[in-house]
């Protein structure tokens, strides 16, 4: 009993040592970033609130790169209601929009009423009230950010979404699977092992993740329910089993199975638990990812020599090559609207994230300041790509917008951060 407890403490200590604590730093915003003022929300309660709601909203909007958020110190007045906003004052401060709000007690929890004011049109664009428990103030803030972002950009916000990612210590003796808010806050350790963990992937309902763990000495695919922490060994086959990818409708799991050194793409029917082989080629076939139609997959294959990206029709197993520029293109992701293919592209000696327009075939290399870019994962609104990169001898997470305009980093204080997977919108 005591030893078990000590073992647990020891695990927590090593686990904590490899924690990342990510903080967003915007490195490049849009040229056309919208100037917005987020006025600190009024709160009349006796004690300070556990979370700075309007501060989080300002961080979210600023961190997206779509907005240029006015520093609080430049504000002349701090209106808390729509009536208190003097448009000319904000117009003189060259702001396009002003967000104001106030927080009140609501039973055990809180209610936040907020308003978005259009400075130039001199109108209230939206008024909304959101309620939650005391522990949910941060969720309330992200909810407000999503609401404002959608109203002002037309794109659904992803501030309430989550990330899972792997952290490791320098000597690769500890591997942690972490769960955090999309801005890196509220990081939680959900699985820890002294063997590698790779390829985390979200189920489309956002309730569980699949990943590959080497804990038995070789690769196997596990599911883990986020709410309960319950794990299930889903696939362990003779040879190697890896690269899980849920179909958008949640009924199938594509994966890679390799026996005697020949990796091919397979699919597992999650209802019948039957597997079917989809490719049968002596080259490396790996990194399957579903397209929105639940029928086509994109995958990486070395059948033409180096890795290139191919499309596979799962109904007739027809394969079509998709990438031709360069000698290394791998790990593709498709945006939900089916318009862009995002993948790792080698240009010269560098590995960067590239975007390919699926209609025109045009390829745009999105990243340049980071090196050894890998593991791109697209935000569920199709606006941003989060990826792992190498910086000053460490592996960090960074993000870039699909058009290459917005860039931010999520540097960690300790260890290497790898393999990010962006959740669906909940």
């Amino acid at each position, binding site marked *: 009993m005591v030893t078990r407890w000590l073992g647990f403490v020891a695990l927590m200590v090593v686990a904590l040592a490899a924690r990342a604590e990510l903080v967003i730093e915007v490195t490049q915003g849009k040229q056309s970033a919208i100037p917005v003022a987020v006025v600190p929300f009024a709160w009349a309660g006796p004690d300070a609130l556990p979370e700075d709601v309007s501060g989080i909203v300002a961080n979210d909007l600023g961190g997206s790169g779509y907005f240029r958020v006015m520093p609080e110190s430049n504000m002349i007045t701090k209106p808390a209601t729509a009536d208190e906003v003097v448009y000319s004052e904000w117009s003189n401060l060259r702001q396009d929009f002003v967000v104001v709000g106030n927080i009140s007690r609501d039973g055990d929890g809180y209610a936040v009423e907020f308003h978005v004011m259009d400075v130039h049109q001199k109108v209230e664009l939206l008024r909304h009230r959101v309620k939650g428990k005391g522990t949910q103030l941060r969720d309330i803030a992200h909810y407000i950010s999503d609401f404002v972002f959608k109203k002002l950009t037309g794109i659904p916000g992803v501030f309430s979404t989550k990330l899972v990612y792997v952290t490791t210590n320098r000597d*690769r003796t500890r591997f942690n699977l972490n769960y955090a808010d999309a801005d890196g806050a509220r990081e939680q350790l959900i699985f820890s092992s002294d063997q590698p963990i*790779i390829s985390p992937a979200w189920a489309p309902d956002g309730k569980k993740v699949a990943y590959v763990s080497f804990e038995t000495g070789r*690769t196997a695919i596990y599911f883990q329910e986020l709410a309960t922490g319950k794990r299930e060994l889903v696939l362990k086959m003779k040879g190697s089993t890896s690269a899980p990818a849920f179909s958008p409708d949640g009924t199938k799991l594509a994966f890679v199975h390799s026996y005697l050194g020949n990796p091919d793409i397979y699919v597992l029917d999650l209802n019948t638990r039957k597997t079917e082989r989809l490719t049968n080629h002596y080259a490396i076939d*790996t990194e399957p990812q579903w397209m929105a139609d639940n029928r086509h997959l994109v995958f990486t294959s070395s059948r033409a020599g180096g*890795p290139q990206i191919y499309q596979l029709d799962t109904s007739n197993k027809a394969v079509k090559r998709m990438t031709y520029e360069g000698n290394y293109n791998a*790990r593709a992701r498709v945006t939900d609207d089916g318009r862009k293919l995002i993948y*790792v592209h080698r240009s010269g000696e560098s590995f960067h994230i590239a975007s390919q327009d699926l209609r025109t075939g045009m390829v745009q290399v999105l990243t340049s300041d980071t090196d050894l870019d890998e593991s791109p994962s697209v935000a569920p609104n199709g606006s941003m790509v989060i990826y792992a990169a190498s910086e000053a001898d460490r592996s960090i997470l960074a993000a870039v917008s699909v058009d290459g305009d917005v860039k931010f980093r999520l540097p960690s204080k300790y260890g290497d951060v790898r393999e990010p997977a962006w959740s669906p919108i909940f």
Partner: protein
Amino acid sequence: MQKNALYKALGLTLGALLVTACSSTGEVNEGEASNTTASAQSQTKTTNGSASSNGTTAVDTSAVSGESLKSEMSQAEAALMEQTVFYFDFDQSTIKSDSKAALMAHAAYLKSHSSARVVLEGHADERGTVEYNLALGERRGMAVRRYLLANGASASQLEVVSFGEERPAVMGHNESSYAKNRRVEIKYQSR
């Protein structure tokens, strides 16, 4: 020096075997290998027999030289077996020519120690993608496995595990570090 001796020894004993095994995709037929040895022995016996009846000395010389070759080979073998890490080029799983002598020594050892077991750990450098590198590490492990099989090891002695880019030998981010990370490590589980 030792290398030369080993090449000679292996060339004599395994050359024919290597050629036949290489041409087949699968595993070396152990039965065939021992048959070859058996027939070689029986031939020697026959020669011995006929030699004694003929009263020539040539046979005695060959028997003596046969024994000396054996001890020389095990010495060279031991030296070569100290090399347990084998390196590869970027995005390649082809065994380099300077790896072959040591791999042959491991194969010869495995052949003569049927209870020996090894894990072949395949690795990739950090460049490129995680899953592709996992596949690449496995390819490298399989290339070494095939080479050992072709040179006398048996399938039941060999297990391939790929760690992809997850367990680098060296942490640096330059070509000299990468070169040390693109590797297969032979790890003996039992000798």
